[in-house]
């Protein structure tokens, strides 16, 4: 019985994926914690672990075709050290966990874990990122919104691996990130907020707002964004009730051991409101 496999190449890894159920294991910072047992006993994996963290094909950050491509096993620390990674994503990563966990944890792992509180997700939603999924049979690309299906659920097929995250080459003059954690460091998010915008001649020409941990999946409302696009900034204040209504039905937070649904709902809206009202102050 195979309980774990360390492939040397992506091809080997995909062949193993094809052969039967397995659990891709990159940094292990979520998988191991979830399976923590009595100290001195080994964690139990329901299926063989496939150690992909060291695969060379899943490393690195490139800008080859104009699009920023981040290997799925790139560590969070490596994201912080690369100047091509959008500042919005770096801001989120810089506030994740602790240095030791960032040295082990990977971008792909954070996505595949599919926690509603995953901190890399709101920036990636705001940046219109896509994921690249590969199997022995071929490769497909999905927008991140389609990849994440619910808490702990993704579109990853049993024979596939998430191999890369792709971010379109677009600079935003305005971007904002806010993590509301249980403390200032090494904390899970009660909720998080990421947004980018462009303003031209007093008008909002681009707006993307994404919120984490306030619903089963990251909340991004294109309807709400449309309500403000191509409109003068001075109209924002008047339209806030409409915007709030548009978000109200999407914000479906829960009570848990870290915070309350009421707090998450209220603060999510406060952060949206602050961002929108602050736009006229931005350069």
């Amino acid at each position, binding site marked *: 019985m195979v309980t774990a496999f360390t492939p040397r190449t992506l091809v080997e890894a995909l062949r193993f994926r094809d052969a039967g159920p397995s659990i891709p294991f990159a940094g292990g910072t979520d998988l191991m*914690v979830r399976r923590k047992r009595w100290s001195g006993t080994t964690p139990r994996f329901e299926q063989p672990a496939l150690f992909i963290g060291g695969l060379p094909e899943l490393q690195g950050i490139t800008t080859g075709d104009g699009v920023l491509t981040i290997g799925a096993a790139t560590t969070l620390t490596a994201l912080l050290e690369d100047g091509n990674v959008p500042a919005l994503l770096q801001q989120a990563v810089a506030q994740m966990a602790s240095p030791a966990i960032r040295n082990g944890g990977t971008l792909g792992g954070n996505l595949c874990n599919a926690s509603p509180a995953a901190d890399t997700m709101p920036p990636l939603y705001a940046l219109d990122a896509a994921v690249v999924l590969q199997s022995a049979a071929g490769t497909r690309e999905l927008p991140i919104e389609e990849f994440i299906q619910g808490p702990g659920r993704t579109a990853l097929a049993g024979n596939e691996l998430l191999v890369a995250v792709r971010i379109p080459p677009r600079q935003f003059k305005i971007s904002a990130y806010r993590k509301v954690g249980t403390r200032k460091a090494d904390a899970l998010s009660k909720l998080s907020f990421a947004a980018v915008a462009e303003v031209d001649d007093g008008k909002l020409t681009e707006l993307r707002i994404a919120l984490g941990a306030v619903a089963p999946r990251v909340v991004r409302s294109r309807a709400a964004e449309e309500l403000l696009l191509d409109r003068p900034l001075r109209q924002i204040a008047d339209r806030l009730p409409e915007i709030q209504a548009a978000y109200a039905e999407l914000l479906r937070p829960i009570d848990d051991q870290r915070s309350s649904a009421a707090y998450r709902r209220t603060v999510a809206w406060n952060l949206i409101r602050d961002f929108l009202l602050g736009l006229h102050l931005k350069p």
Partner: protein
Amino acid sequence: MSHEISRPVAKIDNREKLAGDAQYLGDLHPQGMLYAKTLRSVKARAVIRAITVPPLPEGYFIVDRHDVPGKNRVKILSDDQPFFAEDRVNYIGEPILLVVGPEKERILAILDGIRVDYEDLPPILTLADAERSQLPPLFGADNYFAEYHFSRGQVDEAFSRAARVIEGEYQTGYQEHVYLEPQGVLAVHEAGKITVYGSIQCPYYVKNALIQAFGWDGDRVRVVQTTTGGGFGGKEDYPSLIAGQAGFAALKTGRPVQLLFDRAEDIEVTTKRHPSAIRLRTALDGTGRITAMEADIRLNAGAYAGLSAVVLQRSMFNIAGVYQLPALKVRGRAVATNTVPNGAFRGFGSPQAFFAVETHLDEVARELGVDPLEFKIKHMAKQGDWTATGGTYQQEIKLPELIAEVEELSGYRRKTADFARRDGARLQGIGMALFLHGCGFTGSGERDHIKARVKLHKRADGQVEVLAANADMGQGLRTTLRKIVAQTLERPLETIIYDNPDTDRVPDSGPTVASRTVMIVGKLLEEAARKLKAVWDQPGEQEVVKDYEHPANIVWDNDTFSGDAYPAYSWGVNAVEVEVDPSTYQIDVKGVWSAFDVGVAIDERIIRGQVEGGVLQGLGYGSLEVMECRDGRIQQRSVTDYIIPTALDCPRIESRLIDNPYERGPFGAKGAGELTLVGAAPALALAVGNALGVPIRRLPVTPEYLMEVMEHGGAD
């Protein structure tokens, strides 16, 4: 003023801890050692109808109530808590039995196979449940492990004549110790004698608990403290329980048995700080002076009495804060609930009381339209005044100096005025708390219960060994007690030895609790050293013994709670500055400034460590450390979910010590360990209240709570 004794030295355990050489409980693996794991109740309240255990493999054992050779009750104050459940369970996590054996995987498999057949009983989960008469009481007829009253002066008359009466209710939550090293013991049975090694604060508490549990003579029971990674009170009472359990297992199996908790288990089932609900009523005369106060204090004790009665006493004796009140009436109750038993925690009932009284008097002042600090200063006690229990403050009270120091460090008055002119955008506030800590055991406890004894043993080579039962758990005791002896003997520090206590070698100098060790045990050692010094030149080995003698002018009546509740008091003042985010309601602590009177510091750097650690632990208690019990189960069961401050959450902490030597403390020292925690949370809450312009009546002051306060324009 600087004293020679106060000059910092390198702590004796620095090297072994930095090098990783220190041997903690988990590092001990004697030949043939077995592991133990506990089967726990999953019910808050139930009758156990039957327990079905699968066939055990060779070498594996079940250890339960039938394996207790003596009395199946943990000796603390009253013998109410069983080592292992008998016919019923009273909280989720209550130990039922141990599975013991050589391999952890097989132990887990055996645990998985055990079936407990429960018959549910209606649980009492909250203070409100406990007072609902339709639920069968958990303890006695009324569900109170302890109920006390005391009063002084003409309270009813003061209230009937009052120009004004102001009242408020104040609530605090749990606090978990989160010592770095979880609870653990190792028991060895050899030649008719049981030895327990443990991460503990009070070797003789454990020894006495074992004597009763085994029904053996004291010379067949030995307890050895292992290098202890933090205690904070959490290793005062709880270790007696697991020492007994591991001891029974060692007796039954004939092998050494390790019972060492993982973090999650430790957080969920070990004792915590008591949640409290405190109602205060203050009567004022026409000039705005307090004429009387009434206090009603309820502590949630959990399922067994443990130390709750004494914790409650300290809450009651401290409810008047640092103030001189003409009349005072106090009622206190330790309430039984079907939740994890609560116990000792740094401050021992006083953090709850100081939060209530400091917040309440601030509210009273604001209602009267006077400056809260001036109002407090007007009521502060002075030397010769009465204490809450009608004793006398016998030493000089240097609160005015402490306030001046903190004012100078913090700019409290200027900031108060600045922040009052709110510009609307920033919610800034500063709060100041005044507090004390009664050092040592309550009342005549040292004389009647502890009867401390120390020994000094001079070896032939001139080295001197300190023989005392007190435990260094990181607070630096092995260094400070050696300093006291070395300086008294005028011998080099390196020639004084103080090893982790072993009850076969050291006399009972009492537990390492209640901010008593340096003041009481240190003084005994100073006196013993003086005796030794007088005969120093005699050749060969020598041993001197020193017993505690109670000061004649400390008088206490434990039946009426009147007299001097404590032999001495340490004092402190904290200012905390915060900014509250108006969108997320998060609190950013901008700075903490504090001044303390601990008599004389035995080591200034060690005291600074106590200050920084105590303040930070107090800030965590006041803001971050949320622990909730839902349906009888603790919800925050990991360090991921139970949030203590990290280095980034630690503000700048500036502190000063003022000199106020205490004649009955060694070199003038008083207690320091608990004091430093007590004032941080009240000052933080006052600062937040100041920033928002509303009273804060609940700890911890979470963003979720502040959202409610801000949305509804007032507390609760």
